[in-house]
Each structure stands twice: as structure tokens, then as C-alpha cells.
């Protein structure tokens, strides 16, 4: 985080001193495309003349890497575009690259990133800095594979990314759901917790056998958000958390989160290490996975609708791992997306890639080989395509898809995420004795632009 701030600072120092470099052809293409003056054949022709697409994605998943090289690259090659798949360590590295390029005066046709796999705050950052190509998602031929009708509640995942309007500047690529796995070798079906109260009861009988990832990691933030939804004093769950902080106000937010934070404080001595007097929050998914594998915790949670199937298949979960419905009614579901930056060097090729990734073929093979849930919406598809998608889905263990579907909740608004995260750090980690209202108000004041 610190590193990144320094980087952005140095980058912005240079920004003011640099002349703007622009690629006339690419700029013209962008203007024509966004104005709707180009046919898809024009885009394909332009993409072929650009020749390559610089795609940046998190490269830590072997299965994804295999799929990218063995399925996506040949499909793009057939369209006359070379896929340059840059595997990165963290998505924000690609975002930083876009910002650094922009700071150096590199605009459309001249940067180094054509497409990024991202969501949430990384999209928010690019949008805030006005570094997105423009509204392209609904102009792709495969846009028909998504629900765009705002009246249909299911369209929200395509229209909003952590509460931020996508405005077509990114196209959904995969769906995800927060799912917890239990090791049946330790946790019998009868004792499975479904609510946070159940979890507390389980931990009282089995102290120290649960941990959630430490905020500000997004997985930790997600767990905290689900607690806040469940303990919402008005009983309206996730609903008020869809508003931006400017609309909600600090005092109202403090009122809504108070019971949830009280619960988090209460269970702290029952979490991993708590019985020994030194509670331990794992730093990331890898750490939590290790704890789960080694039976130090009985439940491990994270994003991954088919994670149990994938991890059982590659040995990173025990064969006794099963999915559970927890927290009932509050399993956060979201999507992740492909975005095209404003300074994409090959904008037409980026559009072709985005369109291919939205195709039924790409989505079915990705689901089948990598186990990433579809980003396209099955009800918009031809029956045969929807059936192919359903057939490609990996297995569930211990729960059904219908049960998983029946317990979903939306993400928290991106502007609240930072406030809640700061409140957690102050109230839980630092053990501040200030009243919660004051902590929330301070966090809001500090984060105000």
C-alpha cells in the first residue's frame, strides 16, 4: 500500500511536466467506435492490423494459465490477434501501470495495457481518474449474453461493480460467490453453523477453530460486511449498505454497524489463537487455506462457487471438505470484469478479446477447465447454450446450486468499504476505547476527498 502511494506520488510529480503523446489512428478509432459509427467487421479489421493485445491478469492459478494459453490464445490467433497474456502478481500492478503511463503522457494507442481482469476498488480507481476507454460493453456483439434491463434485479451485477456504476466501461467476465467450506473430518453435518449465532455456539464448544482473513484484505472485508448485513438493527440486511457514504451519512452508518461490530468484538476471544490469549487473523487466502488444510480451523471461507471441487481436485483441500450454507441469506455474490484502459495501445484488439471472453464458448470452457462461474447470464442464452453451461459446471459437495442461489446478498458500496475497513482496524485491531460513532465519524472525515 505504502509502496503504491509513493509510486503514485512520483508519477503525479512528472505528470504536469510531460507533453501529451497521442496516436492519431487509435484516437480516431476510439472516437468512431464510441460514436457507434463502426461495424463489428471494421473493429475486426482494425484489430488484425493492430496484431496483438496486451492482457494483464492475476497469474497465480495454474488452471487459469493453462486455459488462457491453450484455449484463449488459439481462439484469438484465429481472429488474427496475438494474445500477450501478462501474468501479474496483483491486479493493482496493472492499474498502477496504466496510471504511470498516463502520468508520462501516454494516451490511446500509446500505453502498455489493453485489458485488465479486475473489479471493485481497482475499477473504482481507474474510473475516478478517468482512465477508462469508454462505454463499450453493450456495443459488443456478445452483449446479448448479458442482462442489461435495469428493471430486472439480476442486471445489478452487470450495471454496478461494488456499487460503482460500470457504465459499460467494463464487461462481466466471471461470477463469484462467498462460500465457506467445512472439513467433515472435524465438523459433522449436524453441527454445521448456518448463522453467526450458530458460529458463536460452535466456537464456544470448539474454541479457536475459526478465523477470518484480516481486513483490509478484501476477503476479510467481505466477512465483516456479511456480519454487518446479518446484524443490521433494522432487519433490512444489505439494503442500506448499497448507498454511498455521502448519501448515508456517518451517524446513520454508525447506527447500522454497531450490533455487527459488537458481535465481532465478542467472538474475538473464540477465534484462532484467542483461547491462548493472542488472536490471529490470517493475512491472505493462502494462509487461511494452510490453516484449514492442517485442521487448525474447521471452516474456511472465500470467493469461489466451485472452489471446493477445484481444490479437492488439485489437492489443496482435504477430500473431506464440503460446502456449507453460511452465512444464510448473506453470502455475498459479485462479478469480476474485463476493463479497457483509456491508454490502451491496441484498443480494437482489446474489444475483440472482450467480445471473445463474453462468448458462450469461452465461458463454457472456462467453467469446465478452470471452475470459474459464468460471467454471462444463462437466462439470456439459447436453450442449448444454457444447457452446455449448466453441464460444464463442476460439482457441489454437501449443498445444491439452488441452496447457494437462495442465500445470496450484494456487495457493499465501494465508498462504504473503506470506512468499514478503517473502523475495523481502529475498533477491533487497535482495540480503541472511543465510542463507535466517533470512530466511524473519524474514518469518514479522514477518507473524505
Amino acid at each position, binding site marked *: 500500500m505504502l509502496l503504491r502511494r509513493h509510486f503514485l506520488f512520483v508519477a503525479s510529480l512528472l505528470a504536469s511536466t*510531460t507533453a501529451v503523446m497521442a496516436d492519431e489512428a487509435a484516437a480516431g478509432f476510439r472516437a468512431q467506435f464510441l460514436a457507434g459509427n463502426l461495424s463489428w467487421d471494421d473493429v475486426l479489421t482494425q484489430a488484425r492490423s493492430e496484431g496483438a493485445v*496486451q492482457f*494483464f491478469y492475476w497469474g497465480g492459478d495454474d488452471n487459469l494459465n*493453462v486455459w488462457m494459453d491453450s484455449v484463449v490464445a488459439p481462439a484469438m490467433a484465429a481472429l488474427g490477434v496475438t494474445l500477450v497474456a501478462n501474468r501479474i502478481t496483483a491486479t493493482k500492478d496493472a492499474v498502477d*501501470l496504466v496510471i504511470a503511463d498516463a502520468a508520462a503522457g*501516454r494516451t490511446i494507442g500509446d500505453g502498455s495495457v489493453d485489458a485488465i481482469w479486475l473489479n471493485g476498488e481497482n475499477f473504482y480507481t481507474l474510473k475516478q481518474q478517468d482512465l477508462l476507454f469508454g462505454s463499450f460493453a453493450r456495443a459488443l456483439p456478445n452483449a446479448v449474453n448479458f442482462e442489461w434491463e435495469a428493471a430486472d434485479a439480476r442486471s445489478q451485477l452487470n450495471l454496478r461493480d461494488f456499487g460503482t456504476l460500470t457504465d459499460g466501461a467494463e464487461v462481466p467476465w466471471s461470477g463469484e460467490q462467498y462460500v465457506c467450506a467445512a472439513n467433515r473430518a472435524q465438523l459433522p453435518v449436524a453441527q454445521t453453523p448456518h448463522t453467526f449465532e450458530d458460529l458463536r455456539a460452535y466456537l464456544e464448544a470448539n474454541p479457536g477453530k475459526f478465523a477470518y482473513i484480516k481486513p483490509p484484505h478484501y476477503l476479510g472485508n467481505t466477512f465483516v460486511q456479511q456480519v454487518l448485513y446479518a446484524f443490521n438493527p433494522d432487519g433490512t440486511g444489505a439494503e442500506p449498505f448499497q448507498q454511498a457514504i455521502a448519501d448515508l451519512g456517518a451517524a446513520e452508518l454508525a447506527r447500522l454497524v454497531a450490533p455487527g461490530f459488537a458481535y465481532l468484538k465478542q467472538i474475538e476471544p473464540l477465534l484462532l489463537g484467542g483461547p491462548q490469549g493472542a488472536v490471529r487473523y490470517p493475512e491472505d487466502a493462502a494462509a487461511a487455506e494452510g490453516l484449514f*488444510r492442517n*485442521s487448525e480451523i474447521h471452516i474456511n471461507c472465500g470467493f469461489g462457487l466451485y472452489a471446493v471441487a477445484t481444490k479437492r481436485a488439485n*489437492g489443496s483441500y482435504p477430500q473431506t471438505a464440503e460446502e456449507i450454507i453460511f452465512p444464510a441469506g448473506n453470502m455475498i455474490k459479485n462479478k469480476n470484469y474485463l476493463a479497457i484502459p483509456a491508454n490502451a495501445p491496441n484498443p480494437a484488439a482489446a474489444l475483440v478479446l472482450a467480445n471473445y471472453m463474453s462468448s458462450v464458448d469461452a465461458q463454457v470452457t472456462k467453467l469446465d477447465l478452470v471452475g470459474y462461474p459464468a460471467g454471462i447470464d444463462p437466462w439470456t442464452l439459447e436453450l442449448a447454450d444454457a444447457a452446455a453451461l449448466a453441464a460444464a459446471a463442476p460439482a457441489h459437495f454437501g449443498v445444491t446450486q439452488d441452496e447457494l442461489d437462495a442465500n445470496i446478498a450484494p456487495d457493499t458500496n465501494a465508498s462504504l468499504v473503506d470506512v468499514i475497513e478503517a473502523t475495523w482496524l481502529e475498533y477491533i485491531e487497535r482495540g480503541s476505547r472511543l465510542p463507535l460513532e466517533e470512530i466511524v465519524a473519524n474514518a469518514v472525515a479522514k477518507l473524505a476527498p
Partner: protein
Amino acid sequence: MARSKSLPTAARFYLVLMGLFLVGPFVPLVIQSFAFQWDWPNLLPSEWWFTARDRARLPLGWDYVLSPYSRLGEAVVNTVVIGGATTLICLAICLSAARVLAREQFAGKRAVEFYLSLPLIVPEAAVGLALSVIFVRVGLAGSYAGIIIAHLIPTIPYMVRLLTAVYQGLDPGFEEQARVLGANRLQALRLVTMPMLLPGILAGCLFTFLVSTNLFLLTFLLGQGKIITVPTLLFAKIAGGSLDASAAGIALVATLPGIALLLVSERLLDGRIGMVAR
């Protein structure tokens, strides 16, 4: 000389201890690289990679590491090419610098020496972040040239110090003697100076190469994710997931260039030192 017989028991004990200390960390890594599932409290994997690979739909463990999908081949080639180029350029710069520093006295010599070791004091991150912004502007970001230039920064201080010490230990009298006896400058350099410098040069090159092949942050920042080396590949692998079989395999491969070079240089150095002593 019967060295092995004359070793006292205590020395043998320490030798074994040292051996264990060096080899120890590799043992779990090797086991992990062949494991499918290896959890507490099992002392050994409950299932090995070779029994699980038949039912796996995608390459698993070493199958992945050695497949083109892991990009390990590309990373190894990049690492060796960048390390080799860095070493040669570094040597060319440092050889002449070290000669002057060792033999000449001039105003501000202490300051120059201090200046040359500055990169050891300034954190790699600070250098890398500033450089990456500059390199983006001049078009060196994401290029081999950019990475090699960046790798020179932390390697020059080591090489200069090492070569300066070597030059200091080399009496200029040897060269003069050769000239007096009728050798021309080139012959003196080739037949007298070089053989005496060679052990130092080889040690410096070995060190430079090893530092270069292990640099993560500079490579990562200046390669922009486009140029992958073994350290960046390994980091990408273990930053998001746990140390699974394929990560352990990549980690093991990452140690190979160093080990290979150590063995080669060991042989070379042995021969050379023997020759000089004669």
C-alpha cells in the same frame, strides 16, 4: 596429504551439521514438489503427485512446471540472458574503475568510493519506483535494456569493491617486470596481469550473476509484467496461492542456475589458483 584421516571428531561433527543446515531447507521443498496432498499431522504426503496425475484433467505438479504453460523455460532463458549481460557490462565498467581506485591517488577518491557504494544503502524499492517512472518516459520500461541497466545499480558496488581488493593485492611490479623482460603491453596483460586477476574476476562475476538472477523488485517494476524471470514467476505463483507442488517445483528450478554456476566456477577457480601458485 591424507586430509580426510586427520580431521578431528569435532570438525567432522561441524561439517555434518553444516551440511544439514545447507541441505535441510531443500528436503521439504523436494517432498512438496512431489506431493499431491500433504497436511498436518502426516509426516509424509498422504497422496503423491504420481498417483493423482492420472485422474487430473489439467497438468499437475511437475507436469505443470515442465509444460509450456508454466512459462518456466522462457523465464529461465530471460534470467540467464539478463544475468549474463549484466555481469559482462558490470565487469567492463568495474575493471577499469577498480584499477584506478586501487592504484591512483586523486582528490575526492574517498567521495567516489562512498558514491559507488550508495546503491547498497538506498533501498531497492526507492530506486525501482523512481526508475520505473523515468523509464516509462524514455521508453525503456518493459524492455531488456531497461532491466539490465537497473540490475547494474545494485551489482556495481559489489563488483567494484571485489576487484579493487584484487588489484590492491596485485603488485604493479609484476607488470613492470614483464615489460622489462621484453613483453609488450598486450602480452603483459594477457600473460601476467590477467591470470593473476582471474580468480578475483571469476568470483566477482559469479557474485554479480547470482545477485542479478535473484533480483525481484527491480525486475518486477521495470519489466512491467511483460518480461518474466524466475524470481517474478515464483513470486506470482506464491503471492496468491499457497506453496503447492508446482510452486515448490518452480522454487527448486530457481536454484539451478546458481548451483550450476557455483560448480563451474569452483572447477575454474581451482585450476587457476593452482596455476598462479606454480
